[in-house]
């Protein structure tokens, strides 16, 4: 199982921003990123499950710093979590993140990860999910992948 390599991307602005971010960070740190996009949707729900976001995660020892933003949700955020599950397979909550009660804003946290969770992080088996008032089961979601 292999995730697609990329030769070109329309999100080149993100890449610019990201490479800046990487060069600033010390070499010992490992950086990860999650793209947030709408939870599973249908033609009937596509206008009520909306928004996007991008979250950067930096691992220093066992400390994971989470910092990102989101926008365009259909209603205000109520909760945000890190879950444990391999790509495209939902799993349990393993950590809380901080979000404002707003349809757009920052998502942050400073977490101590167990060795198992570090292992999960390295196996692409953590994802971030933001819940909203009208989408209690979650409105935005994104798996965390290493930036290389």
């Amino acid at each position, binding site marked *: 199982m292999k*995730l697609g390599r990329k030769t070109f991307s329309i999100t080149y602005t993100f890449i610019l921003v990201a490479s800046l971010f990487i060069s600033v960070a010390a070499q010992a740190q490992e950086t990860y990123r999650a793209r947030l*996009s709408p939870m*599973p949707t249908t*033609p009937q729900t596509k206008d009520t499950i909306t928004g996007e976001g991008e979250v950067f995660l930096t691992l220093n020892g066992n400390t994971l710093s989470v910092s990102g933003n989101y926008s365009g949700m259909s209603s205000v955020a109520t909760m945000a979590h890190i879950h444990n599950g391999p*790509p*495209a397979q939902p799993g349990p909550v393993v950590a809380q993140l901080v979000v404002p009660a707003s349809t757009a804003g920052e998502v942050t946290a400073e977490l101590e990860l167990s060795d198992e969770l570090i292992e999960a992080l390295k196996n692409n088996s953590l994802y971030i999910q933001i819940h909203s008032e009208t989408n209690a089961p979650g409105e935005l979601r994104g798996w965390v992948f290493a930036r290389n």
Partner: protein
Amino acid sequence: MKITTIISSKAIRRTLLISSITVVLAACGSEQESAAPATTSAVAELTGFETQVAQGADLFATNCAACHGTNLEGTTLGPILSGNTFLQRWGSGTPTPLLNSIQTNMPPGGGSSLTADDYLSLTAHILSENGMDTVTESLTASSDLVIQDNVSAIAARRQRPAPPAPEGVTVAGNVDDFVPFVPVTDAILENPADGDWPMHRRTYDANSYSPLDEINTENVGQLKLEWVWNMHEGDSEPAPLVYNGIIYLINPGNVIQALDGKTGELIWENWAGPANRQDMRNIAIYGDNIIQATTDARVIALDARTGQQVWETEIAEFSKGFHNSSGPIVADGKVIQGLAGCWYYIPEDCYISALDANTGETQWQFETIAEMGQPGGDTWGGLDDVFRAGGETWITGSYDPELKLTYWGTAQQKPWVPVSRGMTIDDVGLYTNSTVAVNTDTGELDWFFQHVPAEALDLDEVFERVLVNRGDEKLVFSLGKYGILWKNDRVSGEFKGYKETVFQNAFTNIDPDTGEVTYREDIQNAGLNEWTSACPSSAGGKDWHSMTYHQPSGTMIAPLSQTCLENAAREVAMVQGSGGMAASRKFFEMPGTDGNLGKIGAYNVDTMEEVWSHEQRASFHTGTISTAGDLVFAGDLDREFKAFDVNTGEVLWKTRLGTVVQGHPVSFAIDGKQYIAVTSANGGTSPRAVPDVIATEIIYPRWGNAIYVFSLPE
């Protein structure tokens, strides 16, 4: 016959789903604005039926209108639910089959909490809109009225406000007035002139490769629009056919046009009917005739010079759900035609037909579903033959004239999830989701290879079979919705290798020696109404958009798509006439792709390694073609038509068309000058519908079917 990937069939876990199969509702049918009186008159007491109609109208607006239109008029996401064609299908019986069908299959997006009463109300609303206005009693699951007998005279008259659709030749002309027509022989089809594209994938090996090289990596940047021709509106994924400078173009609604390739001048047009907005991907040419399949499961030959009908054969009964969305290939003097819509529980199964190309007479039929007592018949969990459904051949096959074998992909079992079909993951269901190699003389199965047995997620392996020779090896390649590129020996069927072209998590193992797949455990055991999350989605890692084999570089270049789904099986009544798809689905971006839905991947056919890939937000909606000019062409949702360097994937040229670039590009030459043609179109089934709910920021006109022709400046 060699059997390669079969899990031996085992116990049958037959969940008898619906115990009470009482039937019959109340019915009638007519059309558009037969306004339900219930919604307007607040004073008068409503009849039971009117109450249902009023409730049904509200439920429809919330649950169905997004796809079927506010007035049932249909959208690109769902068909029209009123009018003659709809009544033809449902009118002759009671409302129960319609009720069952809706309850089992709608809304396909799922997650809705509609009750049995809600489904009765929805059925009442649809029937009322279709003119059933003589009924007063509430519909029940056992109403025994016949729909068409209850469409009032007034309503029946409203059925016919539209002028009759054209039939037959609507524009008369003769190809001979442009270029003398040369009858098409087997030899021509086996070795077409460099400048022709005389069948759906140009050659029998389905390589979608043009030996023309006037347009190449050096000069492609100068490509200019030569002419454009607006096509009939509707769902469309067309593969134009070009022979001797004339373009034969299949339009939605079973309309064929002959156009002068040089100037875009219309020569003739024929309407074979039915005059709908439905899709047909390709047509064929042989002898003096153009040969088309129709959306109502007929095959018709038209005089290629004039468009006049020569012969017609009904290959299956449309009223039983059979239809076609792809046309034939002519091989060895026979018109070889697949069949779609085989998902109902009826005695008839799906088959591939061979007709005499000169007369239309049926020569043989190859059934894709093994029945009880036949070889492979014990792979259906002991189900009665009536309940063995699926195995459609909705994409046209290829042909090896030396081996006299025609290669087709078959679709999966229906309904989509084992538990819905009263089966388990061990009931592999031959010959579904397989490559079948059928002898063109006899119609007999030479070999088969079942790529994904007991398919469980609506991810079929039905697409084109690309024939490739490497040294002494005769190979056949295919790429199904799981995004796995399969390599098989095409003489024996033997498994030769595979490559995952996009992320998939449906299989935990693919045996590198046998190609045998193992489903993830929760997919194996998925129960009714349980959500399973998997990649890719039913839009396919790859779908109907054909891939190309570039002979000079030995690479297969495929249009791919990166989305995932959540799927939940629904209950299906084990009664004759039931069946269908029976799953609810939701869609999301594929993790790890950065939201890039579109991918073109190039694979070395010897090593099966990825040579390059191009990823972008907009999904691709054309097949890929390659040329001797070392170019690959493909078009996307964001209206861009692009030329790539076949060796590096670099985009060398792009232009923007009126709407989504959709169909199958072709290249041809007239008087030594090379042209590239491509269509823009609407419709496109799930590969279009899924990006529409995920990449909602990509806006394009919902009309604008057309063919665009490009060339280099003089």
